[in-house]
């Protein structure tokens, strides 16, 4: 799958551009973090990639087909999955299984195929056994996993997620971060926008948006080491510690380590 932006410019109000002349292509595999200050256009960037918004100039192409035309008139739904910041906004049914099936029904999938995918996807996100539960009775992390399951069930190989952990407690956030790692291992491409530096450091590639364009991209280490990025993106003390002392710990290969990894390493 090849998803690309070519010369994309977008505004909500004339005279106030959000993005200008952006060219970018989603990598064929791995994980990407989109970061930048509030109002830099991270959510807009993701919605343009999903075909949910259409640029005033330039184009967004999925395998050569243009967003807003033909079968992609409304979005790239079915090919590219989009998960909103607050899972509550995405949960529509009264049971977990109905919620997952909803999107597949809309795509007109056969019943036998839906049943097969339902079992697979709930197992994949760790919600097996909760099929009959009301979504509102789930924890925050489980709701977010349900939202991701509903998108995966539609066959999306590319997931776009807007601040996927910002509404979650630390337990829920770490469940979701672990799920991303395992989905990437299965060949699903994950692109997420976040302010949370420890999540961003776990991505393979970072894109820093500011001043209406992509100002910088590269490995998390390269991007978050830059002083002008640090002025805009909040880094936890743990991230700062590793960036400050690259030779002092198990991160000397310049790959971020979670505190659990480091404690286990020392033990």
């Amino acid at each position, binding site marked *: 799958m090849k998803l690309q932006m070519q010369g994309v410019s977008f505004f909500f109000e004339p005279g106030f551009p959000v993005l200008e002349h952006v060219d970018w292509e989603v990598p064929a595999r791995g994980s990407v973090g989109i970061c930048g200050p509030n109002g830099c256009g991270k959510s807009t960037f993701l919605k343009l990639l999903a075909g949910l918004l259409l640029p005033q100039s330039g184009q967004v192409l999925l395998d050569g087909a243009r967003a807003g035309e033909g079968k992609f008139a409304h979005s790239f739904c079915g090919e590219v999955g989009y998960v909103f910041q607050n899972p509550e906004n995405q949960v529509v049914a009264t049971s977990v299984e109905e919620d997952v099936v909803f999107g597949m029904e809309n795509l007109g999938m056969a019943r036998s195929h839906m049943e097969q995918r339902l079992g697979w996807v709930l197992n994949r996100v760790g919600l097996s056994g909760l099929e009959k539960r009301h979504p509102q009775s789930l*924890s925050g*992390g489980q709701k977010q996993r349900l939202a991701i399951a509903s998108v995966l069930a539609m066959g999306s190989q590319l997931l776009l997620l807007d601040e996927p952990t910002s509404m979650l407690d630390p337990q829920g956030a770490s469940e979701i971060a672990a799920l991303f790692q395992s989905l990437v291992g299965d060949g699903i491409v994950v692109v997420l926008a976040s*302010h949370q530096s420890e999540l961003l450091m776990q991505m393979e590639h970072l894109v820093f948006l500011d001043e209406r364009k992509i100002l910088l991209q590269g490995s998390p280490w390269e991007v978050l080491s830059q002083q002008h990025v640090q002025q*805009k993106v909040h880094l936890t*003390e743990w991230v700062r*510690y590793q960036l400050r002392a690259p030779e002092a710990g198990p991160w000397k290969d310049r790959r971020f380590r979670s505190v659990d990894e480091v404690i286990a390493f020392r033990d």
Partner: protein
Amino acid sequence: MIEFRDVSLTYLSRSPLAVEALNGLCWKWEKGESVALLGTTGSGKSTLARCCNGLLLPTKGKVFVEGWDTSAKRNGALIRRKVGMVFQSPERQFFCPTCFEECAFALQNFEPQRNVEQAVQQAFQWVGLSPDLFSRSPFRLSGGQQRLLAIASVLVYGPDYLVLDEPTSGLDAPSRERIFHVLRALQANGLGLLLVTHDMEFLPKILHRVIVLKNGEMVFEGTLDQLFSRAREGQQWGLAFPSMVRYSNARQARSST
């Protein structure tokens, strides 16, 4: 002072779906005191916060705001004026077409005769928002500006206590810094602050006290240092201490063995 006396609250009580959110809670929050309220999702944090200004009423026990019973209907307006609330997603509390009207709305409700322009200007100044934004739609602001507008919309009517639900979630570094300075200034002016948050790195700078809820019960009350020294219990309560604190604790534990 806001006082919780043996407060229990059950959602959908007398139904098979009943959920006990608070269970026999006794707690006092003094004016001018800054308190953090911690706990996992479902621990009762938001329920406790909403009880502070009568948005939710206990099913058992009483909440008093400076002696006024929140469950007495006649006290409602007075209590809401004393205790302001800023929700986690500011865009969910906006409904006016412009930032000026949004900020003026509550004040106009409390004091219909008052000229609100000066008060709105003052509130914008407190939080560092430019008057150039008066005519802009609140939905066209950045996340940080929306959070500041939500705070201004409450400060405009002069509450004595302010409850903030996740004041830093989804904010960039400059916006966090701005929120921090605003809270410091409010603290210096004697406002009581209750921060419902998971962001423990933001806490040490402005806190007097931390309380932790689990399953609707208060399991800890003390300073942040006291909390951080109780790593094992912290884990049982579902708290994730900042990575740097966990790292220091692990190093200390290793050196003492």
